[in-house]
């Protein structure tokens, strides 16, 4: 694995120095993106997102839960990412690895900060319970850039979620009433850095080669989540440029994907 990584890394670096990528893309170009919504009818919302060979399913379940003591008027939003062993040969059954926890938390921050869902609207009158939204991210094929694929899938699923009827403090799953109102469309853009070269939407091979990575989630004119990962640093100037690029790309994606 280590040898493979080194050979790969050299190859990817050499290509980048000639302004090329292994799959022929431009440095700031996404792979083909496709989103199918409503693919799991038993879930209250769902979306399958494909970026190149990466395939992520997001499924939304609605439930009832006790509100947090410090936020008695707010519903609960809970995001979980599952590296199902289906998704890659190094994904193992069992408790989630740190990468899955990080992924879930970054996606959660992006959707939560953007206020895509009004958590106060999940309060139930005259009840000790509030509605809870469970977002499950199922990583079925990992070819890099799980952050962007997962955020896209989660947002598309939330925007196609129907709230079930609540009766006597019970959810009637067979009866769906209204669409979940959404108020934002956060989009994340993930960049990789090797030496002074920066690329958008790294593949799995590129992720093994890059030394620094940053994910910037934006919602209209706001930055709503950032995650800098891997060792190499970014300059202030680079980060500000990447914020601009993220906002521009997010705008393009919203139009192209009609979400």
């Amino acid at each position, binding site marked *: 694995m280590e040898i493979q990584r080194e050979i790969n890394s050299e190859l990817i670096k050499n290509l980048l120095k000639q302004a090329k990528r292994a799959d022929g893309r431009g440095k700031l170009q996404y792979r083909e993106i*496709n989103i*199918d919504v409503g*693919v*799991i*009818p*038993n*879930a209250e919302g*769902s979306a*399958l997102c*494909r970026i190149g*060979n990466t*395939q992520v*399913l997001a*499924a*939304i*379940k609605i*439930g009832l839960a006790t509100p947090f003591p410090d936020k008695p008027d707010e519903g609960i939003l809970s995001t*979980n990412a*599952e590296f*199902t*062993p*289906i*998704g*890659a*040969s190094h994904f193992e*059954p069992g408790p989630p690895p740190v990468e899955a926890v990080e992924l879930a938390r970054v996606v959660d921050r992006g959707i939560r900060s953007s206020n895509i869902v009004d958590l106060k609207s999940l309060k139930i009158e005259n009840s000790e319970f509030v509605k*809870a939204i*469970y977002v*499950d991210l*199922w990583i*079925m*094929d*990992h*070819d890099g850039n799980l952050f962007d694929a997962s955020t896209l899938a989660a947002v598309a699923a939330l925007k196609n979620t129907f709230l079930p009827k609540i009766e006597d403090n019970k*959810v009637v*799953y*067979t009866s769906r009433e209204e669409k979940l109102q959404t108020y934002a469309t956060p989009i994340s853009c993930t960049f990789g850095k090797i030496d002074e070269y920066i690329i958008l939407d790294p593949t799995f091979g590129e992720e093994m080669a890059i030394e620094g990575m940053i994910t910037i989630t934006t919602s209209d004119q706001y930055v709503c989540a950032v995650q800098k990962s891997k060792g190499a640093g970014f300059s202030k100037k680079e980060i500000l440029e990447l914020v601009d690029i993220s906002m521009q790309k997010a705008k393009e994606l919203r139009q192209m994907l009609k979400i």
Partner: protein
Amino acid sequence: MKPLDQDKKNLLDLEGEKMETPKLIDENGKRLDGRAIDELRPIGIKARVLNNADGSAFIRWGKNKILVAVYGPRECIPKHEASPYKAQLRCRYTMTPFCSLEEHGKAGPSRRSLELSKIISETFEKIVIAENFPKTAIDVYIDVLQSDGGTRCAAVTATSVALADAGIPLKDMVAAVAVGKIENKIVLDLSKDEDNYGQSDNPIAMSIRDEQILLYQMDGLLTKEEVEKGLELATDAIKKIAKLQLEALQEAYLPTHDKFLDMNIEQKKI
């Protein structure tokens, strides 16, 4: 002995459910979803839907949606599970927390999924030519993305396709279907409601060429004649399902095939 459906009804009452047993077969002999008693739900199979896995298959059976991936033969970890004589075939059946029209599921394997993992592994134990790959493991991962009754049968059917897609040598193909008893009649391919309110559920997996029954479970009460009728009904259906498996594998070799999941693949009435 009390009839089983009475027991089930009492259990539901205890849980405070206000459900009454629906009429599972109407006066025209049609079931809740309009099927005849010997009719399968529509089925669609697509092989090779994933890029990373060595073999994969997606099956859409009625409202069920199941994804199967095969990795291997590969290094067997933990090493003490490895055999010097053959590959270890390890199937893992998982219900995703969002697959049912109920509340969000809990993480981790349940007693039910552990049992199913075991019997599905055993279904393929003598089918896979494991002696060719000593000291290795062949891992089969089954994720039930949407469930509506009969998931283990759909999973076995898809697993056979995924193993073949992975290029694992097999002695035979395996397909499965459930038969059951509802309204005192033996019927084919129980849906979730028919399983919940019916009198008996018998999932059956069979090898195609030599008709060996490799998985057989049942609950409820059946006479010997009803058992026999169920086995006959299952055999006919399994032969038809095998044709779909073959078509899916052939399609995977066409130049038009793409390695992507399509959750709404076309289903066929067979």
